[in-house]
């Protein structure tokens, strides 16, 4: 079985900036692969390489067995790209946009129309189909953009930060749409800097940092590799935090992490759930009042921290972020 993507030692430099620094990555068929990493890790450069949009300086990259350098036309037949900006035409209707892309995929008019109707249905955009895209919300534009990458019936969808800049509701909505595609059997490569997004959507995750893949596996494997489970206590008042932290530190011998804003104290522990009752009783004996206590697997940001020694960018509270501020516009780094 040919892997959907095989990347070996990819390098790409823009002047002095090293965007890809020997990236290795394999995506098997039937996978949703999330490339997870902070801003500037090389995620977008990698997607652009897979989409045959840039010339690699080194390494080999195959998409469904076709080399991006020697058979770019074959590669383009396999992929559908939804880039970081919703590249839909605001002065055309949703339907016109999709039909245009379908025609450019080489479909005859009847096929293009039929596929467009299917995709509009899949994206839940039937009602808005004949309205100009400039009247669409940001979430609708993203869905249409996703639809445009899909309308050519590609084998592999490339989604570069598909939900960046969306409000939380539109984000969940788009996740649903992506999951629907996956159930339909399309392979997906998506990049994200949101851990929960990778966790929700992907069957496999590659963590990328400074142009290299530093870890990969299923979400569960990665969490396991970061090792220890975490005991987390939710304390009622801030005054009790030091007492609880000291008690937890006595239990495991490490250093407790304190989040004063949410009054949570956590610490990594060895062993499975069998000790949790003992620990809970010990904490109960303290004078502190504790709302709840739980043993949980590590979260992906803890995984990232454990693997890179560096914290991942936290998702802002309102789920919104200025898009592409630190990014060069498409094509600019040349």
């Amino acid at each position, binding site marked *: 079985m040919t892997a959907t993507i095989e990347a070996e030692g990819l390098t790409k430099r823009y002047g002095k900036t090293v965007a890809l620094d020997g990236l290795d990555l394999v995506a098997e068929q039937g996978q949703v692969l999330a490339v997870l990493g902070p801003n500037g890790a090389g995620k977008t450069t990698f997607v*652009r390489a897979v*989409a*045959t*949009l*840039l*010339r690699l300086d080194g390494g080999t990259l195959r998409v469904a067995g076709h080399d991006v350098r020697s058979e770019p*036309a074959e590669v*383009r*037949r396999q*992929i*559908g*790209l939804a*880039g*970081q*900006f*919703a*590249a839909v*035409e605001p*002065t*055309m209707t949703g339907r*016109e946009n999709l039909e*245009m*892309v379908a*025609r*450019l*995929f*080489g*479909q*005859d008019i009847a*096929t293009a129309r*039929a*596929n467009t109707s*299917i*995709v509009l*249905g*899949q*994206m*839940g955009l039937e009602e808005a189909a004949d309205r*100009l895209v400039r009247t669409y919300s940001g979430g609708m534009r993203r869905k249409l953009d996703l639809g*445009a*990458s*899909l*309308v*050519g*019936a590609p084998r592999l969808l*490339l989604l570069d930060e598909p939900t960046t800049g969306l409000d939380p509701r539109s984000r969940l*909505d788009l996740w*649903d*749409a992506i*999951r*629907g*595609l996956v*159930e*339909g059997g399309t392979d997906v490569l998506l990049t994200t800097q949101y851990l929960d997004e990778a966790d929700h959507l992907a069957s496999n995750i590659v963590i990328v940092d400074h142009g290299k893949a530093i870890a990969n596996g299923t979400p569960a494997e990665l969490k396991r590799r970061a090792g220890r489970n975490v005991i987390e206590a939710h304390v009622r008042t801030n005054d009790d935090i030091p007492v609880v932290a000291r008690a937890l530190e006595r239990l495991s011998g490490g250093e407790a992490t304190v989040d004063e804003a949410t009054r949570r104290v956590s610490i990594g522990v060895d062993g499975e759930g069998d000790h949790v009752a003992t620990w809970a009783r010990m904490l109960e004996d303290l004078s502190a009042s504790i709302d709840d206590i739980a043993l949980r697997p590590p979260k992906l940001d803890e995984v990232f921290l454990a693997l890179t020694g560096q914290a991942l960018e936290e998702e802002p509270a309102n789920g919104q972020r200025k898009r592409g501020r630190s990014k060069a*516009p*498409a*094509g*600019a780094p*040349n």
Partner: protein
Amino acid sequence: MAATTTTARLSPATQPTTLLASTLVVARRALRKFMRTPQLVVLGTIQGVMFLLIFRYVFGGAIGVRGIDYVNFLVPGFITTGVLFGGMGASIAMAEDMEQGFVDRLRSLPMPRSSVLTGRSVADTLIQAWSTTLMVIVGFAVGFRIHGTVGEAILAYLLLIVFGFAFEWLFLTLGMVAGNAQAAQGMALLVFPFTFISSAFVPVQTLPGVLKVIAEHQPITYMVNAVRALTQGRAAEILLGHPASYWVSRSLLWCVVLVAIFAPLAIGRYRRG
């Protein structure tokens, strides 16, 4: 969720996209964008009309041209340089398409890559023909008259479309180098000195030293004079010092030069991504 309930299957394309088909699809989108953006259509037209009225009625009285009414001298110059102002729009549109990821999407599709450029230039040439027609009508309204044959006038009109096509490649290159709409707008301002240091609005003989030399040899002058000679007959030939065939052949030569330089540049820049 609606997204998860679908059962219909998408059918893939059965044959590769031809250059002609994809060129037409890309051109159609560019034309739709133009026609559905009223500020482009209306503002562009108003701006053109305003310039013409200012030159015709404000400066016109002070500019004397030997043997020919100023309006008949002005309108060919005005319409020809209008091709450049239209080109500014093409440059900005190209930059916008790069900036907003549209070009990336097209480049990732299994279609001939050059159709992004060929489609654009087909659309821009049609847009150019439309605005040229509009300006011809306004020209007639302010007193412009033909003093040659109808055949020559039609030839002049066709020449204008060829000029537009030739300059398109220059503007596509500018748009891609700029990379975003604002920068493209800035670069396109270079059109102004190019336009005014020519025979478009005043006889080149009236320009001082160096400017006169530049004006006499730059492509706009040949193009303007070709249109003038074709539409104004004998009087224009006397004024311009050469028959129409001289100006037409040289202006076409300039078109060849422009395309020969800028088409490869545009395509090369586009390929690099």
